[in-house]
């Protein structure tokens, strides 16, 4: 049975809270404040007991697929294991009970952690400095593009365009627009990589930056990366790395050596901080020396002599703040703990295992599904459901059927350059046994597509609800409960 809404569990007179008796002189709000400032009706919040509330959210929780239950091969999302230690240390009262406006003296532990995390990330990417302020990957992209704009503006012309490949994440062009630039999208070559000719034709002195994910969204390392960097730098544009796929490079390759000037890190991907059903994340940004003056202030610095940490606001050319305070500190603690747990060798093992796992899946699955770019991959690869589509089974159906086998589906219909795309990223967290079980499920679905397509097309069958009508959701928009009943906009 479906779980009721919390509002539908409400009964007047029940309470889920416990507050102390008022100890200051009791005054009716209406005696303290002029009546015109007071709300006329109470907020129609539910009235439930504490136990009702706990049961409700617990029952909701078990409707979710999640990493602690099983495999979650969402491509480009790096759904790796979230270490439990990190949850515990992030909850230490010395971290959670710390107000952002306390003095630096009172926050030395937090500043020290942020300083070192910045250092670690810098070293991993070969960058000169890191800001931890952006709250998510897309936030990091925007921050970087605004810095790039400030950089070019300082040399006289902010420029007007940003180039991205057609395999780019949707956040890239969206961030470009938000930074006031125009997106120029270039076609990938038949290897799924940057077409140097196409790039050269589209690069001129009006290009502010080129944004590239490497390994790209096909899971392929951009083989001509050094030439790409040269082309970009010849016109004075900045080379930006979308770090969503950094997991593949940990310890083995340095974005700086590839020619990148700026990179964003997804702490909630590469550095194991939990995704929380859609955040909070962390979109730290690493930059080369030349870009440092434009960083959002403050940065965390160290007074070497006194072994003391402080916030440095002295950035006259800063783009300004991008977050109320210093970023998602709670996420930083987890990323810090992850890096210290694995250490430098462990991080390299992460990349190694992620790459082997992806290639193993790719080699094991390409017999059953089309593999448009049959090259050795890095941490992920993209299959196409074209073969199954010709049997009337779409990639969406395959994804839904996987849910029946207790696996989460891969990322589907992305990247846009692969028809019926299934983008699979196993991460290093999975054992060979799990990968083999996934291969078996994918094989079975390929077989079902031939012998019993209906069972795939009508999937999922074993989830809490069956296939949901997305068109109806958008057409008869119902995005909230109301006391009067359904409100459709």
């Amino acid at each position, binding site marked *: 049975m*479906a779980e009721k809404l919390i*509002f539908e569990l409400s009964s007047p007179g*029940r309470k*889920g*809270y416990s*507050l102390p008796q008022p100890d*200051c002189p009791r005054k009716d709000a209406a005696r*303290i404040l002029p009546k015109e*400032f007071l*709300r006329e009706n109470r*907020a129609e*919040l539910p009235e439930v007991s*504490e136990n009702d*509330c706990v049961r409700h959210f617990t029952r909701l*929780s*078990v*409707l979710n697929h999640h990493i*602690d239950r099983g495999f979650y091969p969402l491509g480009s999302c790096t759904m790796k294991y979230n270490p439990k230690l990190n949850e515990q240390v992030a909850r230490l009262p010395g971290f*959670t009970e710390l*107000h*952002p*406006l306390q003095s630096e003296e*009172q926050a030395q532990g937090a500043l020290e952690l942020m300083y070192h995390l910045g250092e670690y990330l810098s070293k991993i990417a070969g960058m000169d400095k890191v800001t931890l302020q952006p*709250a*998510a*990957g897309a936030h990091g992209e*925007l921050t970087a593009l*605004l810095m790039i704009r400030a950089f070019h503006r300082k040399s006289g012309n902010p420029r007007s365009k940003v180039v991205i490949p057609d395999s780019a*994440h*949707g*956040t890239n062009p*969206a*961030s470009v627009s*938000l930074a006031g630039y125009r997106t120029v999208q270039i076609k990938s070559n038949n290897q799924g990589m940057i077409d140097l000719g196409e790039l050269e034709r589209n690069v001129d002195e009006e290009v502010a930056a080129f944004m590239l994910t490497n390994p790209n969204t096909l899971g392929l390392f951009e083989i001509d*990366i050094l030439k790409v960097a040269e082309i970009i730098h010849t016109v004075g544009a900045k080379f930006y790395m979308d770090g969503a796929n950094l997991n593949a490079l940990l310890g083995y390759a340095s974005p700086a050596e590839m020619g990148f000037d700026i990179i964003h890190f997804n702490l909630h991907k590469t550095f194991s901080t939990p*995704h*929380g059903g*859609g*955040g909070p994340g962390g979109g730290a940004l690493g930059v080369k020396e030349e870009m440092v003056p434009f960083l*959002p202030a403050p940065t965390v610095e160290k007074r070497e002599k006194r072994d003391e940490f402080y916030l440095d606001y002295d950035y006259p050319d800063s783009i300004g*703040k991008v*977050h*109320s305070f*210093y970023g998602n*500190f709670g996420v930083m603690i987890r990323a810090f703990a992850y890096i*210290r*747990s694995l250490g430098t*060798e462990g991080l390299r093992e992460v990349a190694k295992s992620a*790459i082997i*796992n992806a290639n193993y899946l790719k*080699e*094991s699955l390409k017999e059953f599904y089309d593999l448009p770019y049959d090259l050795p991959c890095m941490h992920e690869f993209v299959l196409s459901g074209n073969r199954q589509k010709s049997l009337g089974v779409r990639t969406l159906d395959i994804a839904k059927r996987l*849910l029946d086998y207790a696996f989460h*589906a891969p990322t589907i219909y992305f990247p846009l350059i692969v028809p019926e795309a299934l983008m699979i990223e196993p991460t290093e*967290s999975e054992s060979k046994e799990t990968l083999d079980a996934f291969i078996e499920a994918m094989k079975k679905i390929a077989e079902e597509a031939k012998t019993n397509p209906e069972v795939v097309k009508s999937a999922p069958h074993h989830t809490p609800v*069956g296939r949901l*009508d997305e068109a109806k959701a958008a057409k008869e928009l119902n*995005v*909230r409960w109301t006391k009067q009943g359904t409100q459709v*906009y």
Partner: protein
Amino acid sequence: MGSNYLPSTESDQRKMLKRIGVESFRELLERSMPASLIKENLPDLPPALSEMEVSSLLTGLSRKNLNLGEVTSFLGGGVYDHFIPAVIDQLLLRSEFYTAYTPYQAEASQGTLQSIYEFQSLICELTGMEVANASMYDGATAAAEAALLACSQTGKKQVLVGSNVHPDYLQVMRTYFSGLEVELSEIAFQEGLVDFADFEDKISDKIAAVIIQSPNFFGLLEDISLFEPEVHRSGALLVQVFDPISLGILKTPGEYNVDIAVAEGQPLGLPLSYGGPYLGLMATKSSLVRRLPGRLSGATVDHRGRRGFVLTLQTREQHIRREKATSNICTNQALCALAAAIYLSLMGKEGIREVAELCLEKSRYAQEQICKLDGFMLKFSSPFFKEFVIETRLKAEVIVESLGKQGILPGVDLDRYFPGMDRCLMIAVTEKRTKEEIDTLVEVLSKL
């Protein structure tokens, strides 16, 4: 060697490499990327630590911070030390919630999707607004996105913002606008409140949005109804930055006929955590729903007619609309939104009012007691909710430092935000402060 986070054994890897058709990982890597870019040396990072060692390292760092639990804090300035019921963290610790991704496969994500739908509904009920999204990064970025929404809705590029809106919000807005040629003008404040004459001077048919915070940065209540008719007559959208706890008693953005209401959601069950993760709240009129930034959960049915929830109106979003998306936001603050949903469910209709009343009464008591002291005056005379500004003979810096030594954090030195207001101390009193603590604060101040 080996890590507890990495299940692959050497023997597993050998088998897998064999299936891939290579002799070694090195060979695989050289086939995948230019050999010249493969680093021989490991990055200069510390070696691995055991669980015990990491735990004690982090515990050590946490102890170098002054934990608010060990002092009495009257610090506010946009984020507050409100009470957090134990239920919230226990539920957030359910890995079904925290180890799930953005709910792209709705049928396997009903827990997240229904809780977002409930979050949206709770925020609507609290604010009196018609729709709410699934969250933004924080209050400041929500305010910036509200302004951009107004620009796209009105086709105009000037925004009027009260200069008593949180200064960090103003900064973040300026940063967000820097690429888009959106022009931000400030409305002056008088006696801590938005100056109506200055507003009237600056409002025109070129304005996309008027942004007013109430309670404003100084804690004072703005009479939004004063501005509303003129803002709408000029064709602009009215944006209010609100305090979610205050709406337990205060007139709602909905009642003020506000178009977009935004807030820092931290007071709704989130720890202070040195600045984040927090929660940006955004609620609007239903006419703006197709321009909302970010995720939105909507109710629908499955093939058997059972109720279920999906991410909806996704054509607004970056993964579909790319450069024409309403925002670039992807990952938001979902788990923080869940915390807020649990908080509002627990507090309910009565609890949210009680918390708000406690804040109001206690802050009023504190202000009255402090103002009885010689040399301590209320800086602004109009009504406030839970935060107020005291002006003294002494520098606020001196007070903060002196009381800090006695285990009291008396508030925010306003010189930090408004250079020159160095004798102004902004004091926040939440439901967590007891009369005894307030009396101690007053006593300590009296001895300065």
